[in-house]
């Protein structure tokens, strides 16, 4: 088994061939599903915990304090302790809640996140679903989560939850447009919806550099709309603590609450990963035109490290404005989308089309 940190396709290929040879085709495929599924579960759980820890540390830094320090070295085990506590909590359901929908909602939210994570290319050969309508699939499944949020708000039989869910519905449906349109701008540039092709095309220069003005505009719009889609930052109206106590997940406790909580952080990762893949070159190292030695040095850093470095930068930016800005009001959030982001986006697509037509790019 040849393990190569620079290219995982050998490893995955070896595993695939090994399984095919030792089992019947049906068993082999089933085993592959199980392995891939477990890998994703483990990754999501660990990365989610890490993100929670990072958020607490980042927010502490902004607020002139230290954050968790007591459990483990520099509080590293704090989130694990919190998670264990959440697992042991009693599940309390309001008496008049709609039982079936109430129990279903957290699963829909977290499954939507899991579906979306499947198309993210982490490194060469480390992507489980790679098909020609990758971006289309991503925008489609990421909006399934809103159904879970609406269900949660409706079935808890709590007025605050319902208001939160309705806000979230209005918000996510609106910002879905901007996310899709800014991705569409990049599709116009890349000429493909397949993630692997998009990454491959950025070998020379990342799209945010080669696509210059329209790509930068699309990147900013994508960051704003993406944050709104994950119900975070200044757009956290759906949970608006000071207004609606906790919004749609007010009535959830224990592991069900943990699902909503985890889904929020996975969505944060997905938004950052998509931004990384489409705008910042995915796992491609940073290359500058003819600087041979520089480019060569950059190639030494493994692609998976590049990918996560970029993802963390985007995550940090998103956390940065969450901990700095006040929350928007519900009408302002819709105004921002329909009166500003959407027209900007439409003009930006035209601009990008012009750029592609005139070949005015690098």
């Amino acid at each position, binding site marked *: 088994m040849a393990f190569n940190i620079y290219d995982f396709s050998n490893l995955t290929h070896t595993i695939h061939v090994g399984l095919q040879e030792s089992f019947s085709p049906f068993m082999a495929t089933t085993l592959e599903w199980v392995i891939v599924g477990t890998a994703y579960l483990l990754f999501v759980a660990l990365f989610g915990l890490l993100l929670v820890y990072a958020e607490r540390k980042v927010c502490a830094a902004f*607020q002139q304090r230290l954050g968790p320090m007591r459990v483990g070295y520099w509080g590293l085990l704090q989130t694990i302790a919190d998670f264990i506590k959440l697992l042991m909590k009693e599940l309390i359901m309001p008496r008049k809640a709609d039982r079936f929908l109430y129990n279903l909602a957290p699963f829909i939210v977290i499954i939507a996140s899991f579906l979306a994570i499947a198309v993210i290319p982490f490194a060469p050969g480390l992507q489980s679903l790679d098909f020609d309508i990758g971006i289309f699939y991503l925008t489609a499944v990421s909006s399934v989560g809103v159904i879970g949020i609406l269900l949660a708000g409706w079935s808890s039989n709590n007025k605050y939850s319902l*208001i939160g869910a309705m806000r979230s519905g209005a918000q996510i449906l609106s910002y879905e447009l901007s996310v899709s349109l800014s991705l569409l701008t990049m599709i116009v540039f890349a000429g493909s919806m397949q993630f692997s092709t998009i990454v491959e095309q950025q070998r020379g220069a990342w799209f945010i550099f080669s696509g210059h003005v329209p790509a930068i505009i699309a990147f900013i719009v994508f960051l704003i709309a993406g944050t709104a889609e994950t119900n975070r930052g*200044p757009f956290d*109206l759906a949970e608006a603590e*000071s*207004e609606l106590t906790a919004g749609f997940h007010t009535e959830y406790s224990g592991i069900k609450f943990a699902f909503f909580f985890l889904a929020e952080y996975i969505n944060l990762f997905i938004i950052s990963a998509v931004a990384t893949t489409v705008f910042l070159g995915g796992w491609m190292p940073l290359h500058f035109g003819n600087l041979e030695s520089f480019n060569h040095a950059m190639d030494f850093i493994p692609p998976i490290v590049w990918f996560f470095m970029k993802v963390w930068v985007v995550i940090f930016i998103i956390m940065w404005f969450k*901990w700095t800005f*006040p929350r928007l009001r519900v*009408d302002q959030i819709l105004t921002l989308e329909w009166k500003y982001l959407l027209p900007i986006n439409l003009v930006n697509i035209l601009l990008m089309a012009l750029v592609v037509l005139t070949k005015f790019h690098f």
Partner: protein
Amino acid sequence: MSEIREIILNSDRLATDEYLVNMGPQHPSTHGVLRMLVRLEGEKVLNIEPHIGYIHSGIEKMCEAISYPQIIHLTDRMDYLSAHMNNEAVALCVEKALQVEVPDRVNYIRTIMDELSRLASHQLWWCVMGMDLGALTTFFYGLRDREKILDIFEETCGARLTVNYNLPGGVMFDIHPNFQKRVKDFVKYFRTKLPEYDQLLSGNVIFRERTSGIGYLSPADAIEYGVTGPSGRASGFSCDLRKHQPYSAYPLVKFNEILDHRCDTLARYEVRIKEMYESLSIIDQLIDNIPEGEYAVKMKGVIKLPEGEFFQRVETARGEFGVFVISDGKKNPYRVKFRSPGFSNLFALNKMAKGHKIADLVAIMSTLDLVIPDIDR
């Protein structure tokens, strides 16, 4: 809950597309146990009915059974953020009734402490204002600076929040030898930190969008509802008792009464921020000139007020605080009534928030700077 059930049962009183929400008694943005029955149409607030009494502690009634120096210790449990001003109001009332002249040193100390409390109160208000609008970081910036004031309080009189520093006829102890130096250090420090407040919150475009033009309270309404303090002054109602009925050392200092005629949430916010600068300048004028002398006049062991009615009002961080004492010549009063600013300010909320969104209701409530025990007494 019974009234909600009653309203729901009498369905002719409740149109089908409206929505009754109980905001409180446990709700993050009421900052205490205030309950508001909010009638909503989607996100729009149609009507607000504040229900108080959840933290009623019967302070006025208790005052009838205890002596005057003891009353002082109850008053700082009402508006705990302007504890020193409340104490001072009772002390001044007793002094006025007994026609006692306090030494200048006492006046100076009281005024400096007043302004420090006002600063601490406004800092906490600023923290919470940001938090109500979703900017959680403000909380830590405000508390960082407030700690410094509380440390000064602790050194001066041993308590941080409910200071209990006043007595009829003076203050309990003389100021600590470090007091002047520490206050001067603080003023210098806070002058550099106040612009940070503007950078973090006041200048933010989202914040300005959220607050300007929201929660209009006309000057006429402000007077009608008796909205005083920074909230009243933001409606152009000149109600600063430090100017109009100066007490303690206020006649000796120069400061501006901050008035704003925009009458909205942003105006109420900016009035408080500007008041912090004024407080700093008042402290600046007094701190170097504290006269030598006694820190209290010798009073009788048992203080008895002459028969009659006595009234004294002071400007607390939230507005006009009044003490009304009816005495029948005994060592404890016949009746005490406190006029608390929060009570009057709260009931203007319906007028201001009607027709706005839920988020605006929270913002408006935040700029009224309510302290619930102050409302319930």
